[in-house]
């Protein structure tokens, strides 16, 4: 509160935590700077404060800190981030400090990175279709402005290529482009550079903000990186009027950092050692998303989560699924067969699609084409697994058509280049071509009028 500087000493060091004498002068979640004899400074935040001492998480880690080589400076404020429209085009580290050689932002305002809750009363319902130029997304898993749609992925899968493609190609029906906020949460430097390069190529870098906590950066820092990125994104969306797409990769690293702190604090662990409040903690980030009545901008989230061991039951993807509006699941099998984007459509879902597509929104046949592709591809997958047992010769003639359909679906409809941008007309045209692999009688999710209009026309 007083903001005046005070100094103290380290009392105890335990894993990533420091215990510091405070004499009650430190507030909850307030910052300290640990100054070491060699001049090195590290930032820490109070996790618990009492009359006499505080438990601090040290973002850069506690390595090398000793009780007699360091002193602790109280900064008298919680973690804040300065926001302004000058954010665009900038690159920051995981704690929000410039790392592009440019001066710090002289913000219009500094904001607490925890953000405030959007008043549900002023939220606007997301129902505007975003064209990503990716057939499998636009056709079957439409993204809607203000939605949070995570990508569940695994090691070696091209989730970054997909997220970058979405960032590059997404356009709104109004013709506006997105501003992109990218939060690297414990990913390799090469991944961060990939995003940067892709945004540069597409000319979007000047409409982007990058926050980089890389794999070699301190793990504890990851707890704040997504929140700083969302603070920037909220400002751009709701104060500056941009439509903002936030990509956060990889949220599993975030949860692991949270677990590390929780275990160091000896909290009662829940599933797989993650703290019991993981659901609420994730919700406080994922819910920083949406549209607000009377405001021009919007905030759309595309979190990327790796599923350790490709396990969709892992607590992080599991809890994420309860908060987000659907999920895109990437598949090793498809990827192995050279299909990009390798989206397992049968496990993926966009919950807000129903409100963003169809008559008056996109095209009259959009919804039923999506349903039909879904149903037919699902049937085709069953027949495929049968063929794996008995071979093609063992399957009935009618069922073989489904094999052609699935092949066409994957090779013509789903498969596209990472730089190939298809508009919705093209996507639906390809969808109808794919459906043409099946006899008309098999298309029971589409009305006869629409079939007459589109079947075999393209």
């Amino acid at each position, binding site marked *: 509160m007083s903001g005046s500087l005070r100094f103290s000493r380290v009392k105890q060091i335990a894993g990533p935590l420091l215990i510091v004498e405070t004499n009650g002068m430190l507030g909850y979640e307030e910052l300290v700077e640990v100054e070491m004899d060699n001049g090195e400074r590290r930032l820490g935040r109070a996790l618990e404060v009492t009359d006499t001492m505080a438990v601090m998480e040290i973002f850069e880690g506690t390595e090398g800190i000793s009780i007699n080589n360091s002193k602790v400076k109280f900064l008298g404020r919680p973690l804040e981030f300065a926001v302004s429209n000058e954010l665009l085009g900038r690159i920051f580290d995981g704690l929000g400090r410039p790392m592009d050689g440019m001066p710090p932002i002289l913000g219009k305002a500094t904001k607490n990175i925890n953000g*405030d809750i959007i008043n549900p009363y*002023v939220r606007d319902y997301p129902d505007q279709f975003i064209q990503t130029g990716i057939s499998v997304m636009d056709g079957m898993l439409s993204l809607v402005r203000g939605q949070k749609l995570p990508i569940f992925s695994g090691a070696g899968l091209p989730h970054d290529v997909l997220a970058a493609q979405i960032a590059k190609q997404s356009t709104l029906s109004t013709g506006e482009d997105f501003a992109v906020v990218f939060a690297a949460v414990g990913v390799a430097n090469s991944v961060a550079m990939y995003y940067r390069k892709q945004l540069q190529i597409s000319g979007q870098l000047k409409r982007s903000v990058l926050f980089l906590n890389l794999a070699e950066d301190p793990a504890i820092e990851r707890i704040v990186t997504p929140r700083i990125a969302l603070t920037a994104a909220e400002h751009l969306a709701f104060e500056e009027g941009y439509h903002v797409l936030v990509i956060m990769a990889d949220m599993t690293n975030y949860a692991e950092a949270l677990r590390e702190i929780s275990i160091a604090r000896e909290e009662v662990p829940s599933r797989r050692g993650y703290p019991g*409040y993981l659901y609420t903690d994730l919700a406080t980030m994922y*819910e920083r998303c949406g549209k607000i009545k009377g405001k021009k901008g919007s905030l759309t989230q595309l979190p990327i989560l790796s599923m350790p061991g490709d396990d969709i039951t892992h*607590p992080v993807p599991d809890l994420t699924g309860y908060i987000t509006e659907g999920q895109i699941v990437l598949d090793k099998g498809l990827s192995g067969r050279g299909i990009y984007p390798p989206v397992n459509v049968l496990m993926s879902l966009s919950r807000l699609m129903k409100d963003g597509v169809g008559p008056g929104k996109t095209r009259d046949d959009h919804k039923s084409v999506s349903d039909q592709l879904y149903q037919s591809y699902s049937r085709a*997958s069953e027949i495929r697994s049968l063929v794996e047992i008995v071979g093609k010769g063992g*399957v009935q003639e009618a069922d073989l058509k489904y094999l052609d359909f699935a092949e066409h679906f994957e090779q013509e409809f789903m498969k596209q280049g990472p730089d190939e941008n298809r508009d919705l007309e093209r996507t639906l045209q390809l969808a109808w071509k794919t459906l043409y692999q099946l006899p008309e009688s098999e298309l029971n999710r589409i009305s006869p009028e629409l079939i007459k209009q589109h079947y075999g026309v393209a």
Partner: protein
Amino acid sequence: MTIKGRITDVKSSVVKATGMTGIKMNEVVKVGELGLIGEAIRIEGDNAYIQVYEFTTDIKPGEPVIGMGSPLSVELGPGMVGQIYDGMQRPLPTISKVAGSFIPRGVSVTRLDKKAKWKFMPTAKLGDVMGDDVLGYVDETQLVRHYIMVPPNVRGRLTDLTKEGEYTLKDEIATVEMDGVRTPLHLYQEWPVWTPRPFKEKMETKELLVVGQRVIDTFFPLAKGGTAAVPGGFGTGKCVLPETRILLNGELKEIGEVWRRGGAIRALQDGLYRRIDGTVSSFVGTGFSDENSPLIYKGESRFMVEINTAQGRRLVVTPNHGIYLYPTNGGITTRPAALIRPGDLLVEPLARRFSSPSASKLGHDKVTDVRVLNGTYDVYDLVVPGAQNFLGGEAPTIYHNTVLLHQIASWAKSSMVIYVGCGERGNEMTDILMTFPNLKDPYSDRPLMEKTVLIANISNMPVMARQASIYAGTTIAEYFRDMGYDTLLLADSTSRWAEALREISGRLEEMPAEEGYPSYLASRLAAFYERAGNVKTSGSQPRNGSLTIMGAVSPQGGDFTEPVTSNTLRFVKAFLLLDPDLAYSRHYPAVNWISSYSGYTQDLSEWLAANVNENFSRIRDEAYALLQKENALKDIVRLLGSEMLPNDEKLVLDMARVIRQGYLQQSAYDKVDRFSSPKVQYYILSAIVEFYSMARKKIEAGARIEDIRGLPVMGDLMYAKNKFTNDSVEGDYTQLMDRMKKQFEGVKSN
């Protein structure tokens, strides 16, 4: 005297303060310079632990904690109707006015507008009064006359009552004297949310809460003052029984056992999945390859098909479980188990024993007999990554119990509706907040909001407020009940509320019980549903009022054994199962008529006889029997086709179809169909049952089923729901019956 202590310890949302002597358990406190709202949840001597309702960033030791003297309360008075509150009764529109689009910490807004003027009409006489006595009223909206009552804990002599006129909530409108103590009364009062409001006595629940939806009112009725749960829909996959053995890591195990020992549970669109470690080498009816990391699915089925083979195999599977077989025209095909017939050749490994089925060759095995088993079965299935067949060939249906709650909220014949959105997704809540203001009350054609209070608490709002929101809603509902109104509380979802309970319990480091929920989960749920009821209010002239509670539960992936759902089912009397399959086949309202139940059918029969028709219960039972018979016949029909059935059973199927399409299905868009009064429901159903009884007599006398199917009056039965209105129904019915009798006279009975 106010208690003023100081903070000694801050740890996330729990704050410890000293100097708190005299603080009461659950007393509300203001924490820190910001004045964050909190509540005392543990007291140790001079120290109190405070659970803070908001985020505690930059709160310091030494900052003040001030006791507010009472537990978390709601203000009850004019201004509530049509309002949208958060879990602590702060009006969200007011917050947006003072603070913009976000809710800042410590924002302080008045719960009820103290400046607005209300026209008060006094009705009481001076003299002795007691709690809940009516002093007068304010016509708050066109739909709600807001009675101003003496607060429950006040009694004495009413010495002063103001004249008719316009008053604010701050103005004194009456004075009650007791033993020389004067208590000034206002247009509003306060009541703590954790304490049920008192009443004189609880009465039987024997009056129908009309919701105008035929499947509910007729078959699964709700009673005024009753309780009901609505779980989200879930589907059944292609499954086997728990005893089915599978080869896991080279060892034979029963699938049910494998489930019990499986890993973390994952809920997907159609059911509950659990990861199992290792490889599975065989599973009945599908492939025979070694597969890594399969998932296991658990669901429930009402029917199983038992298939016995010449080689002594016995398969018991759900009717839609795909079975591989050799058809007569060559190749291999897959067919649902329900369509397998004796003589079919199943694809099976040649080896009779499970040695290494993956290496074994395929052979065939002839089906000797097929039977349908009735009952409720736990069923399991294995899902192998890559096979991607677990979605059962259908696009996933997005179906949420909110849809039915909307419908019930709009059509229920109640004077007040309180909707608590608890722990929902932000965008989902927005859908509700944007839909409700557009709904109309069908009885008055006025906006539904004129008799509605909404409480919105989404997943990222503090958990303590999430927990409180349900109680705040209940207290508001009880207040309107005490005015003598029938009120309806919709809580969506109680599962999220229970999760808040779990999280707070974890923060307090309490010993967890089942699945991490606190041991008091069941008692809290019971206490919540117990606040429903049909009561005689207190006061010198008791009124009848009721509070009906409907809670949505979201069992993860349809696992009804999880603690929240299983405990809820112990305490509610009616259960409306939403069925995604019905929704997918465009059968609305998608209430499953086989698995749903209502314990009120008996309780209400007297009321129905007196207020609708003395034959109501008989007609309902006869119609329901037809639906049950159809259900029993359904799988036989799948096996044999309906043409094999005798005529009387064909007639049952025809009539059940008429009931399904002409009665259970109800369109929200058709002006007449969207709401059926109980009287209309009775006459439509009565016509169907009469038709059946005439047709059965004809069939018994040897008439052809085709002649009965061809009667034009069949079409009239199907469309009665679009024609019969409450005003014309008697005449419509008489005409229909005349036509029916005439047409039946023309049926030859051979």
